[in-house]
């Protein structure tokens, strides 16, 4: 078999109709696979977002419950340390009200009476749209939209 025959065979192989069809089929399958991958990623991101959203819903309820429990406990504590209860306890263990002439004052140079600046507990920040990063409420399409819009603005 000479070189000319080999070139002929290669040429015949290249222009064979079944080969062109395979190329078409391959390209079509590639498109299908790419679409499937995009769909899979989209599904994954969407399901993750949904799970996170559900967690947010649960946490919101949980925060509300905990705040209510905290308020209950705070009120119970205030009841246990109310003026009347504390006075009663003090009297029971032998204390009595002091008179002004019984007070002894010491002059301490440089001492200043400090008053508390914040007198109540600091409330925790509540859940809101502002505190949730966009990754948790943005779909893939939203993300692509944003990127496209940003790139268009960048070009302009």
């Amino acid at each position, binding site marked *: 078999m000479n070189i000319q025959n080999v070139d002929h065979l290669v040429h015949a192989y290249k222009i064979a109709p079944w080969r062109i069809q395979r190329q078409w089929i391959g390209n079509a399958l590639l498109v299908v696979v790419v679409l499937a991958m995009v769909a899979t990623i989209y599904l994954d991101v969407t399901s993750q977002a*949904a799970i996170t959203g559900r967690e947010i*819903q649960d946490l919101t309820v949980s925060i509300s419950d905990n705040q209510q429990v905290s308020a*209950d406990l*705070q009120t119970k504590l205030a009841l246990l340390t*109310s*003026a009347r209860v504390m006075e009663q306890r003090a009297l029971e263990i032998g204390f009595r009200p002091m008179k*002004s002439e019984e007070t002894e004052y010491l002059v301490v140079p440089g001492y200043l009476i400090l008053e*508390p600046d914040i007198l*109540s507990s600091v*409330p925790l920040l509540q859940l809101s749209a502002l505190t949730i990063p966009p990754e948790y409420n943005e779909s893939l399409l939203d993300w692509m939209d944003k990127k496209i819009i940003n790139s268009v603005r960048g070009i302009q």
Partner: protein
Amino acid sequence: MRLQYARRIQVLSGALGLIALAIVVQMTRIQNSPEAAFFRQQASVYAYELQTFYPDRGEIYDRNGHLLAGNKSVYEIGVDLNIVKDSHAIASAVSLELGMDYAQVIDAIENPSEGIYYVVLSDFVEVEPAVRLQELKKSLQDNAEEGVLGSLTGLEFKSHPQRSYPENSLASNVIGFVSREGRGYFGVEEKYDILLAGSPVQAFVPTDPNKAFEIPRVMNGTTLVLTINRDLQAAAEQILDEALDTYGADGGTIVIMDPRDGELLAMAVTPRMDLNQFWNYGTIYDNASEFNSAISMPYEPGSVTKILTMAAALDSGTVTPGTTYLDTGAILVGGATIQNWNQEPWGLQDMTGCLQHSLNVCMATISTQMGAGTFYGYMDGFGFGHLTGVDLAGEAAGRLKLPGDEDWYPVDLGTNSFGQGLSATPMQIMMAASAIANHGRTVTPHALHAMVRDGRQYNVPAQFGGSPISEQTADTLSDMLVVSLESEGSLALLPGYRVAGKTGTAQIPVGGFYDSTQTNASFIGWGPADDPQFMIYVWLERPSASIWGSETAAPVFGEMAEKTVVLLDIPPDYIRQQVVAK
């Protein structure tokens, strides 16, 4: 053969293409069909659910962080009529635990109104009975056969916050209360109702977890920190209650204020009510002004007003402390004779003597010398007839008749000088007297020390009302009042501390005439005189042990002042002077 194969492929491709197109067309048609619109509408009903949020109403603290008003959980107990299994079991359990009528509960469950699927049996149920019912429901469900619903199925529990007052009646007149509808009444609860907020909010909440970011943010109410000192308030209420017993008074008021900035440290009145049982309001009070007599109940203050007349006279140059005056026991003003409290002449007196012996004739003489224009100008400057602006709901302004008013007569110039013929609340007298204690400037009394919102505290600055008199006048008069108390050997004196003050005994008008057997006994004082840190006002209504303020209100002031210096850590004068010297 190859051509035939290709044709088949083309036909097959075309057919598949047509099928695909048909599917797309059908999908598009279905998506846009009236049925789809109907289903979308149906879905939208379930996409959001209407929820009621109960944000916590802002708490109220005293100046040292003691909780005066907070929130606790209570339950709404109802029945979901769609899933009720045994209405008799529910009625038995509920009537037993909550004391409700069995027949009424059965009727509510079995004969609901048209379209009703949820019935509220009871609201604001305390935690303990609600938890017992919940446990009973759970145990019945646990003991039921597999696949069978428990007999309390359908009984529902919804918790929500309710206002709670851990100190019960302490400072009830300052705090006020909140109704079950969430509206504040009286005190700071009413004055700052919008700030404290906490009203239930209804909002549509998305059920779609992808829309979790749309969950509405319901802000809790603003927390308030009051200027009130809880321990001082408790002491004031205790001393007031004891004073009513000791002196047989019908009612009373003790107010303690910092004259430097107007912060109210304590405000005790009678009667008081347990704020946790606010529904008893109607049985305790006859009218709204009784809830906080310190700001809502104007009365003729009597001789405590003399310090203001003297302030006006000194400031206008009508008299000096050394000005002498011959008291003859009577003076004619506007055609009416004015006499001293004992209807006796007191002879030659200087201005300190006039205050010490509380001479009506002396004051009437001074006011007539000043003239109506000057006298009423000063009284207006002191705030008579005006609201003080105290941040508590329900303040009354009192009355100061002025020349030109239909009911003003020339004799009023004389009687007003010693506190008759005009009316003022204790709060107004304190604001006016703060000009003397605070070197000429009146302070606006207030109960709010700070607001706390989102973790940030905003302190409320002091506000000043005006400068009706000069600093020199104020300091001079303060010294005169110290001397007059010490010379008199007043029961208001506090060993180790120089205090300035004045008694007041005002006869109460009954049927158009003053009744000498019924009086309002008052005392206003402040200390330490050289650096006032507290101002105390005592008012006893109709004391029966003695009609005189010097024998009733003055010792109450002394007792209160002693408690105040202990609780506020105010050292005796000689210790303070040592500190200042260093």
